[in-house]
């Protein structure tokens, strides 16, 4: 018995291995837990980092500002007067380069390489009659062509004097209106035609009706004259400020097309047309000698290339900038 007790006492120092192993295992687990928590903290940190998408907003903002800048340069050239197309192009190109260099310097400070370059411009024409007179050409011809082979008409607004218009008696078909000498704006692409008749109804009303190629007339849009005049917008398709669904037929006409006036002597007023065609016919006068209507050279639109490079984004785009308040 005594030997057993001695043996037991002697082994006391060896006891606890199991506890020790458990403690080590637990310590290892806690280290693992610390690592997992560290990974979670890293994830949280990652989640709050700035998104690379911020650069996409910056790039589209730069593109917008660049298009505004070039657009303004083109508009200024268009407003400045009847220069040659080459002069206008050179001026806009020079201004674009200057603007590009200035912005590039400015953005280089925050590691952004930006540039904008003028690729091309579309030569266009603005035809204007800004003093109220018959809708005849510069030599007082009643039937004449304003625009030839236009693929786009940026704006076309007309203000007609109600009292100058014909009041037709027969209005059932296009032929009758033509016979009665009703003032007509003709859109013609060679195979298809839209005739827009403008005539007076009653004492103070103006009616606009559109005939298709087969001569069938639309129901008509009516507007009462304010101050003796009614404004017709052929691009936004309004008559007297209200939408005219009859004019929607103009949208289905394939380009290029011509725009002509028929019986222009039977209406008077003012108008302005912007097209993307450089042609200025002899029907139009020179803006510098005060003749009316006149045609002047404008830049219809400009095509620019925008580049934006940041550490995370490379962006290059070609966009079209209108040269005025047209699309």
């Amino acid at each position, binding site marked *: 018995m005594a030997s057993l007790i001695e043996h037991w006492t002697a082994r006391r120092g060896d006891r606890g291995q199991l506890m020790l192993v458990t403690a080590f295992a637990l310590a290892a687990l806690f280290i693992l837990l610390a690592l997992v928590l560290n990974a979670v903290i890293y*994830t*949280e940190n990652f989640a709050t980092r700035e998104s690379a998408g911020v650069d996409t907003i910056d790039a589209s903002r730069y593109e917008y500002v660049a298009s505004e800048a070039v657009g303004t340069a083109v508009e200024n050239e268009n407003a400045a007067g009847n220069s040659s197309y080459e002069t206008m192009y050179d001026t806009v190109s020079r201004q674009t380069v200057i603007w590009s260099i200035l912005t590039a310097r400015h953005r280089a400070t925050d590691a952004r390489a930006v540039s904008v370059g003028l690729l091309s411009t579309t030569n266009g024409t603005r035809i204007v009659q800004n003093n109220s007179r018959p809708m005849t050409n510069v030599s007082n011809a009643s039937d004449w062509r304003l625009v030839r082979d236009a693929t786009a008409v940026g704006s076309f607004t007309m203000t007609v004097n109600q009292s100058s218009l014909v009041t037709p008696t027969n209005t059932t078909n296009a032929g009758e209106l033509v016979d009665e000498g009703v003032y007509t704006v003709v859109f013609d692409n060679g195979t298809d035609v839209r005739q827009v008749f403008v005539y007076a109804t009653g004492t103070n009303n103006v009616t606009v009706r559109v005939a298709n190629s087969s001569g069938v007339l639309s129901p008509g849009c009516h507007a009462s004259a304010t101050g003796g005049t009614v404004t017709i917008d052929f691009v936004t398709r309004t008559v007297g400020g209200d939408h005219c669904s009859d004019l929607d037929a103009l949208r289905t006409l394939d380009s290029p097309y011509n725009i002509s006036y028929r019986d222009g002597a039977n209406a008077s007023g003012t108008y302005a047309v912007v097209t993307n065609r450089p042609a200025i016919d002899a029907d139009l006068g020179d803006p510098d000698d005060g003749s009316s209507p006149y045609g002047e050279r404008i830049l219809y639109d400009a095509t620019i290339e925008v580049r934006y490079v940041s550490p995370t984004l490379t962006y290059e*785009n070609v966009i079209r900038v209108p040269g005025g308040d047209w699309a």
Partner: protein
Amino acid sequence: MMDDRGVSMPIQYVTLVAIVAILASGLLVSAGGFVTTQQDSGVRHGLDVAGTRLATELVAADRLAGSLDETGTMELTVDTPTRVAGAQYLLKIEPTATPNRTRIRLTSIAPSEEVTVEIVTDLDVQPTTVDGGRLVIVADAANNTLEVHDG
């Protein structure tokens, strides 16, 4: 020595060891389970963050690339974590039954977890599978699509 009577030394020893072993293993199992749960949750959280990050960048890229001309180019570099809570993972971009809706399915390898994020874009996002890490979103303006590559 009166207390020791009737109990042999080996039995007393074995009983003691057994009780300690049961307690220790219980502690280890529960602590191990806790750590495993935390790791799984950490991986899911990480996948969620990586998926949301890619989704955000894809939507931003879509917004910018939507106005691209046919000759235009756009490349957006996106950093997603290489590993989440120590686990490697894959990002699988796949179309859904709804047009313009794309699903990003993130799958970790060990532990095996899965998280999906859905986005709505104007441009179609090409289906692909990429590893987590640096990714590049490229716009294909001619085909009106977005592609995701390993960076």
